[in-house]
């Protein structure tokens, strides 16, 4: 709760930005300072994802966790990115030219509204106590255990709830504690404010040259002000960070499907790896992104499917060290206690599970009309003649809803119909992924519907 803690946290996030900027330079490169500034949000989120994944792997491999270790890891990642940039320079295509469009009235107006929102969010984060049950029951205790004991302390990771959840969020929180100088769970909320800002900047930066501001900003603002997002996005737990990773991966895959720029899929792969390292739900969400991408690219499957398969394999490979760590210690696994296919023993749970999933996704009091708007945009895009983007979005949303249904159906310890209080309802948490992703997908769909085409047009100079 001190200025020192805030300054330390700001320094930590600058380090993440630097790592992400170096990585993005290696994967994509840029032609101008304008492009660099526009990509800062994506670079920051890429830094968060990359550092989170690498710290998690280090933890699983038993590398001691300390302030020096975190700084060294970040420095090595930045150096590796610089070396990669040099070695890839020959093969990497020049990034497509973009014109530095003037910032229009719509962008200024909605940008200011988003700034007002983020300013209010910062003040709420600044002195927020650790109220969320999961946060104090296991997310932050895991982070404190890493911070105090310099690694995955076997006693705490065994005794705390959900021991098989991957350690990306606790690792990032523990790194933040090191930069803050103490295990300050109050100031830790500001870290989640940084993540919210980074996500907004990343989506805006990616879409600004691709869709009109009048389609981008209202959709983004609508997602940010959804009641559940306002109430929960500062909680120091994994839900919203998972949603940010998922949404960015989904957006980058969508852009890759219609643009075919290799850096888009490479960057999406990092976010997919981060998603599977954040929460076990991430595996489900990443599978949905990959399958949706495959369905949408079926006409060019020879080109797309091997690349999507490779991206998925890399993302899942990142999970292997953690999987070995927890399975060699006989900790509870990720699948339902009765097995992944136990749902066939309880066929009567199917329909109530589906109803519960649908009611969570379409709950106006939590999410307004965001998902229905995505549905309308999909129909409009199909009617206008677009194919790839609406197919991708439709498949993605249907698959995630099927996934939600599977979760409820298979985890037989959950009673149906599922009416748990939204504050602790895992289904509501999972459905947030579709809402957050809408902030990125909806503008693309509306743009495709307006133009009657999937082709994303970067403005020529």
């Amino acid at each position, binding site marked *: 709760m001190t200025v020192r803690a805030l300054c330390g946290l700001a320094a930590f996030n600058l380090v993440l930005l630097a790592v992400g900027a170096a990585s993005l330079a290696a994967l994509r490169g840029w032609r101008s300072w304008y492009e660099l500034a526009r990509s800062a949000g994506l670079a920051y989120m890429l830094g968060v994802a990359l550092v989170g994944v690498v710290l998690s792997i280090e933890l699983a491999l038993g590398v001691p966790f300390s302030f020096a270790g975190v700084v060294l890891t970040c420095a090595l990642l930045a150096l590796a990115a610089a070396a990669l940039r040099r070695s890839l320079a020959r093969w990497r295509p020049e990034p497509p030219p973009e014109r530095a469009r003037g910032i229009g009235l719509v962008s200024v107006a909605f940008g200011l509204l988003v700034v007002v929102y983020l300013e209010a969010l910062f*003040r*709420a984060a600044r002195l927020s106590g650790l109220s969320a049950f999961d946060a*104090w029951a296991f997310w932050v205790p895991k982070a404190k255990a890493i911070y*105090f004991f310099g690694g995955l302390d076997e006693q705490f990771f065994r005794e705390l709830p959900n021991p098989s959840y991957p350690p990306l969020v606790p690792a990032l929180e523990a790194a933040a504690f090191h930069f803050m100088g103490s295990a300050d*769970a109050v100031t830790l909320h500001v870290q989640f404010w940084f993540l919210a800002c980074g996500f907004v900047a990343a989506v805006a930066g990616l879409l600004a040259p691709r869709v009109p501001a009048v389609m981008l900003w209202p959709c983004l603002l609508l997602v940010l002000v959804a009641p559940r997002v*306002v109430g929960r996005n500062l909680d120091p737990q994994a839900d919203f960070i998972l949603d940010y990773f998922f949404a960015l991966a989904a957006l980058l895959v969508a852009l890759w499907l219609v643009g075919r720029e290799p850096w888009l899929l490479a960057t999406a792969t990092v976010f997919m790896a981060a998603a599977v390292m954040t929460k076990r739900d991430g595996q489900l969400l990443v599978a949905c992104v990959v399958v949706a991408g495959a369905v949408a690219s079926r006409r060019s499957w020879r080109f797309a499917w091997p690349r999507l398969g490779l991206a998925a394999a890399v993302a899942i490979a990142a999970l292997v060290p953690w999987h070995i760590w927890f399975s060699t210690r006989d900790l509870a696994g990720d699948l339902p206690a009765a097995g992944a296919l136990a749902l066939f023993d309880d066929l009567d749970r199917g329909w109530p599970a589906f109803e519960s999933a649908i009611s969570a996704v379409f709950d106006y009091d939590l999410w307004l009309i965001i998902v229905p708007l995505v549905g*309308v945009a999909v129909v409009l895009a199909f009617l206008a003649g677009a194919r790839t983007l609406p197919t991708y979005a439709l498949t993605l949303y249907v698959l995630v809803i099927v996934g939600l249904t599977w979760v409820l159906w298979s985890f037989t310890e959950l009673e149906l119909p599922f009416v748990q209080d939204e504050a602790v309802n895992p289904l509501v948490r999972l459905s947030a992924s579709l809402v957050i992703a809408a902030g990125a997908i909806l503008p693309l769909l509306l743009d495709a519907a307006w133009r009657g085409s999937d082709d994303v047009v970067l403005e020529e100079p």
Partner: protein
Amino acid sequence: MQRVVRGGVVACIGFAVALGLVYLVRAVDRLGEAVDANAAANYDDREFAGGNSVVVDKRALYQARAFIPKDGRYRVVAGRRVEGATELTEPFIEHFARYFLMPRRPSVDADWILCYGCDPAGLDGAATLVWENGAGISILRASR
């Protein structure tokens, strides 16, 4: 068809703008209320936060932090003899103590005992009373 589609796009954007503006005002109000509540809370309230619904007397956990060394071990023995306990106290006090007292480790045979409404007579072996609040919470140290 293009007109219909474009009309639909405009309608979607219109809904998004209208709802976004209405709910932005509500969001800023709601966040403002959270800011006020956070500012009104004292240091202890912020540090306990979610634990306020579990912990009965904050002094007990602060005293436990003071008495038990950072590399020490403790056990929480919960019971129903705490005055002012909530329905969450007995089932969750051990969870909250684990979060709050870290890096001290919970251990079933620890010397330090945080008795949260327990019956001291029911503890294994002799224990010395180190601190008590007079309302059912005490800190004891087992004699070995």
